[in-house]
């Protein structure tokens, strides 16, 4: 594995034979309060001047006892806690959980609900990627893109708020359907939203993504080779940035994703726009392209979503879940999110286990950031796009 990292060409990494020097190295604690550790991650960094020689991530500053709460709540009451795992993309969290409960209880869900769910998930995915890209820009010191993209994000939150009533943590999906009916202007709002997002992303490419300073800051930084990504079980934009064509929406279509026609943006070696496959810029580029693909899905969703029919009819009055166990996975905004559910037949689950994407993706950080500069470490962390609520659970 180490060899793979060393042998990659076009690497900006600085290799120093430390046996030759007797230099003193500095230990720096970045976090838990640091402007750009995306929450309360603590990185214990060993620095040689500006160069990172060692890095130890410390977790647990946001451990909120998710599994303990699941054991003490019934199936409907767990949904708010699931929301708070990856709080930036709450709808995408609810998706696999609700599917798992439905699979276990044997509930059939109508087509309208499936399409609506996929659309909500895509709106939420756009909102998440807008935040990820803008926060990545903020890590590199550009403050204005953050506010430009938050403007579009407000539209996405507005649509979801009109649907569910909440701005960030929705509690919208439930086994059998969704909680509230669709409001009348939903399709029109989505159309306006798609147009405005496309315009904003065009502007963003001029302002940030193809800016030379930004490219210089991100290309050939934090190289994650394909094999290493597979070995670490990375998924989502992190894996796709390294050229792994893996997306659960395509490889094992769930809900109504087989009805939509969309591409999976992958930065394969030899087909890069800028930089090399697996660097920070590629990971960010995958997110930029995914916003466009989500827009495509939303466009098709507007035509596919039937007007008649209710989305709340399918909800069972009393949820009866037979004993058994199930694993259900879905493509979260950050990669594969799975829920392993064990039921003993009562109204509360015996055990709920989440396969958290951010936690798995964060594991690559020490192995891809050694040898780069401290400023690069911040960029690498930003490009992985972690949410600490999901890492610590």
């Amino acid at each position: 594995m180490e060899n793979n990292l060393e042998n990659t060409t076009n690497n900006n990494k600085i290799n120093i034979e430390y046996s030759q020097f007797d230099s003193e190295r500095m230990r720096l604690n970045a976090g838990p309060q640091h402007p750009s550790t995306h929450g309360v991650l603590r990185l214990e960094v060993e620095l040689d001047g500006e160069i990172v020689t060692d890095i130890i991530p410390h977790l647990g500053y946001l451990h909120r006892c998710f599994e303990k709460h699941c054991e003490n709540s019934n199936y409907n009451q767990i949904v708010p806690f699931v929301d708070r795992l990856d709080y930036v993309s709450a709808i995408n969290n609810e998706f696999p959980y609700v599917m798992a409960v439905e699979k276990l209880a044997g509930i059939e869900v109508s087509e309208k609900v499936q399409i609506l769910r996929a659309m909500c998930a895509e709106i939420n995915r756009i909102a998440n990627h807008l935040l990820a890209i803008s926060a990545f820009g903020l890590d590199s010191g550009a403050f204005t893109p953050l506010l430009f993209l938050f403007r579009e994000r407000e539209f996405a939150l507005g649509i979801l708020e009109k649907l569910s009533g909440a701005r960030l943590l929705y509690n919208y999906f439930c086994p059998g359907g969704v909680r509230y009916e669709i409001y009348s202007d939903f399709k029109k709002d989505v159309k306006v939203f798609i147009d405005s997002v496309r315009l904003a992303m065009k502007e963003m490419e001029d302002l940030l993504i193809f800016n030379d300073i930004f490219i210089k800051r991100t290309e050939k930084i934090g190289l994650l080779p394909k094999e290493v990504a597979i070995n670490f079980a990375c998924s989502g934009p992190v894996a796709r940035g390294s050229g792994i064509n893996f997306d659960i929406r395509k490889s094992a279509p769930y809900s109504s994703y087989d009805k939509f026609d969309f591409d999976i943006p992958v930065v394969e070696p030899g087909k890069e726009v800028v930089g090399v496959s697996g660097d920070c810029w590629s990971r960010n580029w995958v997110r930029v392209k995914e916003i466009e693909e989500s827009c495509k899905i939303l466009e098709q969703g507007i035509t596919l979503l039937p007007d008649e029919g209710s989305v709340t009819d399918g909800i069972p009055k009393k949820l009866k879940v037979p004993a058994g166990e199930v694993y259900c996975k879905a493509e979260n905004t950050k990669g594969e999110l799975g829920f392993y559910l064990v039921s003993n037949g009562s109204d509360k689950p015996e055990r709920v286990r989440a396969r958290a994407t951010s936690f798995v993706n964060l594991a690559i950080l020490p192995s891809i950031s050694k040898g780069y500069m401290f400023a690069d470490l911040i960029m690498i962390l930003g490009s992985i796009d972690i949410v600490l609520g999901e890492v610590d659970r």
Partner: protein
Amino acid sequence: MINYLKNIIKGFSTILVGMKVTFINLFRPNVTVQYPNVHPLVRAGSDKMPDNARNKLNVIIPKCTGCKSCEKACPVNCITIETTKVASIDTEKPLMEDGKKRVFWLSQFDIDFAKCCFCGLCTIACPTSAIVHSTDFEYSCYDRNELLVHFSPFNKEQVAEKKRILAEEVKQKAEKALADKQAAEKAAQEQNITDSKIKSSDDQTSANQNIQNNSN
């Protein structure tokens, strides 16, 4: 050398492109909505707060039956309900909103907004939609205890009064039951005496009497 110059020009031009974008935005109308001057409920277009927004919970007491299903549905147990039965000797004859007779007084209906996670599960669980999300969000406070909101229409004395009435009724009932019992026993004894005196089979009537006594 050509590459070197190309890089310089490319870097310079992308910076100019970025500056162009920000310059255009300098003259665009701003999107800020000034909150204390413009309330989110009266805004135009997509910035308007929808009516179904999940803010502060509101309990419509005339609708509430005191079934406690919201308390059970709450994932964080922030709702505390205590009910007192409406005494039949109570002079106040409460009615529900739909005109039915009320069974329970809501002697305590507390929601702790310092714990509430605004998930909306209680509003779904409520059979009479007595607990609803309002559009009120401006209730931040200097003291955390202000966030514990009492929805019950009664204060402590009134609750004590209602409890006293109920206890009185229970007491009266118990006394009555006791009196009835004693009366029944007396009657039974008399019956026995008469039975023994008149050895005729009047089981049917005595049984009926017993049942009546019990039902009282």
